């Protein structure tokens, strides 16, 4: 008898689980019907003493899932279901996550974001620094005469290696055979990849002897090689035309390597003679025992000894590449903190009256979790959009002014941050305090001229009938600006499905 009783228990368990699929207002009746049938069939099987009937009953109970699914999918008309879904908090989160996914797709899987957030793809990056000159022109702090690079290379007191580069942030045309690409390139010295400690994925990096070659050497990024040249394995040694000059492809760099920007896809070997009259960006590898502060003194002494040019104050700046890469993030974090303070001030002031003070713990958790998730997604979207689609703030000295572009990105982020958080709070205020659905049925109540005894404002209702929100039109000292009134179960009939359909 015991195994058969167990089957009855299993059948009831199946029905209980299936009942969770049925909409809540139909669940009790649905389960009663199935359990009554089960009880009757069980009783009849007991009376007739049919040993296989119990097992067959269990099979029949599995069909309850299909019946429950029918109740869930077919009972409610399609239009209100879609409309109701839009009111739910999950729809907001899904829409925001979708927007973030679209951004990822449009930006090639957050190329710039990854270059800032992930560890720099250089060997021993804590010893790699940029050398720039401060106090010359506030917006062009990096200008270094190329002659100084030669001095530091000869002295080698503070640096293991040093390399110069020039970078103009506009794309150039590269043609290899019949294939054309419009890519950004940078002119570098042969020592640059030695400073970074990077080896080529295919082929090799630059050598000093390449400068003697009649055709300049050219390195391509992994992404450009795959995207524009279909990952051609025979690309090495081919002659490319870059801005009407001939160059020879000598290597493909590793997939994660980037310098000086994630947008740069080609590195040309520069002729040192062409650098002699230019101001250049400089990257260097410090000796292991040398600190950044010590390097500044040593490098300034080298220049003073060789040229006799005095440095007034701290004219040279040696700055770790790791810190430099994360610098934009620190600026964005600062802007975010200021926006957060504004949001907290708005919350603390009580003007929004977002959440009832005597609410249950679970409701409070749901409420704050939703607000946090929504705000985080909004800020992530904004940050990704600013980093990926605004003019890039230059991480490495570029030899041209960056002041305007850095400020532009930061300003867009700062203003956008305040706007996004404000929208998040505004959206939160327009949601039910219990189920987080968007409030509906706005009704204007009162007359502006009669503020003495009554109030003037808009009343909104939760579609599930959990409560009403009264938003005042005019601030009055004896009224909350937004008052939430919770409704008890006696109001349920007014908010039934049919009523909602009638009200639209």
């Amino acid at each position, binding site marked *: 008898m015991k195994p058969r009783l167990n089957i009855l228990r299993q059948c009831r368990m199946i029905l209980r689980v299936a009942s969770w699929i049925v909409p809540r207002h139909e669940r009790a009746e649905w389960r*009663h*019907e199935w*359990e*009554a*049938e089960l*009880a*009757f*069939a069980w*009783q009849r099987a007991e009376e007739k003493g049919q040993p296989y009937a119990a097992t067959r009953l269990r*099979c*029949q*109970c*599995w*069909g*309850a*899932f*299909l*019946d429950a699914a*029918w*109740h869930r999918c*077919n*009972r409610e008309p399609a239009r209100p279901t879609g409309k109701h879904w839009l009111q739910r908090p999950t729809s907001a989160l899904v829409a925001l996550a979708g927007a973030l996914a679209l951004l990822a797709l449009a930006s090639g899987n957050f190329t710039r974001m990854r270059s800032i957030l992930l560890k720099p793809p250089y060997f021993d990056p804590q010893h790699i620094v940029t050398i720039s000159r401060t106090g010359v022109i506030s917006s062009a702090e990096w200008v270094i005469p190329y002659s100084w690079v030669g001095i530091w290379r000869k002295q080698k007191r503070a640096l293991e290696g040093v390399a110069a580069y020039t970078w103009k942030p506009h794309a150039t045309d590269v043609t290899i055979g019949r294939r054309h690409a419009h890519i950004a390139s940078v002119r570098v010295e042969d020592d640059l990849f030695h400073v970074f400690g990077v080896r080529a994925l295919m082929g090799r990096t630059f050598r000093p002897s390449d400068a003697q070659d009649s055709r300049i050497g050219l390195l391509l990024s992994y992404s450009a090689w795959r995207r524009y040249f279909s990952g051609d394995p025979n690309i090495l040694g081919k002659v490319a035309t870059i801005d009407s000059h001939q160059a020879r492809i000598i290597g493909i760099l590793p997939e994660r390597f980037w310098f000086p920007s994630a947008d740069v896809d080609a590195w040309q070997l520069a002729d040192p003679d062409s650098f002699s009259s230019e101001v250049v960006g400089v990257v260097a590898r410090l000796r292991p025992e040398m600190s950044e502060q010590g390097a500044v003194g040593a490098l300034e002494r080298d220049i003073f000894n060789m040229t006799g040019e005095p440095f007034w104050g701290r004219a040279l700046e040696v700055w770790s590449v790791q810190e430099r890469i994360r610098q934009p993030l620190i600026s964005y974090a600062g802007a975010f903190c200021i926006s957060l303070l504004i949001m907290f001030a708005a919350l603390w002031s009580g003007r929004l009256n977002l959440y009832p003070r005597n609410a249950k713990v679970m409701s409070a958790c749901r409420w704050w979790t939703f607000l946090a998730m929504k705000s985080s997604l909004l800020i992530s979207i904004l940050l990704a959009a600013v980093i990926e689609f605004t003019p890039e703030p230059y991480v490495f000295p570029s030899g041209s002014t960056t002041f305007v572009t850095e400020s532009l990105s930061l300003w867009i982020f700062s203003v956008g941050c305040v706007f996004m958080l404000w929208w998040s709070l505004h959206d939160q205020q327009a949601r039910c305090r219990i189920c987080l659905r968007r409030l509906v049925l706005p009704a204007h109540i009162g007359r502006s001229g009669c503020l003495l005894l009554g109030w003037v404002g808009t009343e909104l209702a939760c579609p599930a009938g959990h409560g009403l929100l009264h938003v005042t039109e005019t601030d009055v000292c004896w009224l909350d600006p937004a008052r939430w009134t919770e409704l008890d179960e006696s109001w349920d009939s007014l908010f039934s499905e049919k009523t909602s359909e009638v009200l639209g």
Partner: protein
Amino acid sequence: METPVNLSHTSALILQTISHGYRYGFDIMDVTGLPSGTVYPALRRLERDQLIQSKWESEAVAQDRPQRKYYRVTRLGNEVLQNAVKRYPLLERLAPEAKTPGR
């Protein structure tokens, strides 16, 4: 003029079974041999289209067991069934008459 309801063979068989006096879901499953996952959704559709009507049996009938829900064919259901029998002539043979209607 109302749109004529075209029943599938399975729905017509279930409607015929109910009209023959098998009024409970599990009884219909026993008679037709159809699984519960077919019978119950079909019953819901028939009820939605107002071809059958459901009611809870009285406590007196149920006595000491839970009250069951039974189904009966409406006037519209009978009209539709007559048309279905013309379309599916074998229907009469597939669904036998109950010995005691409304058992």
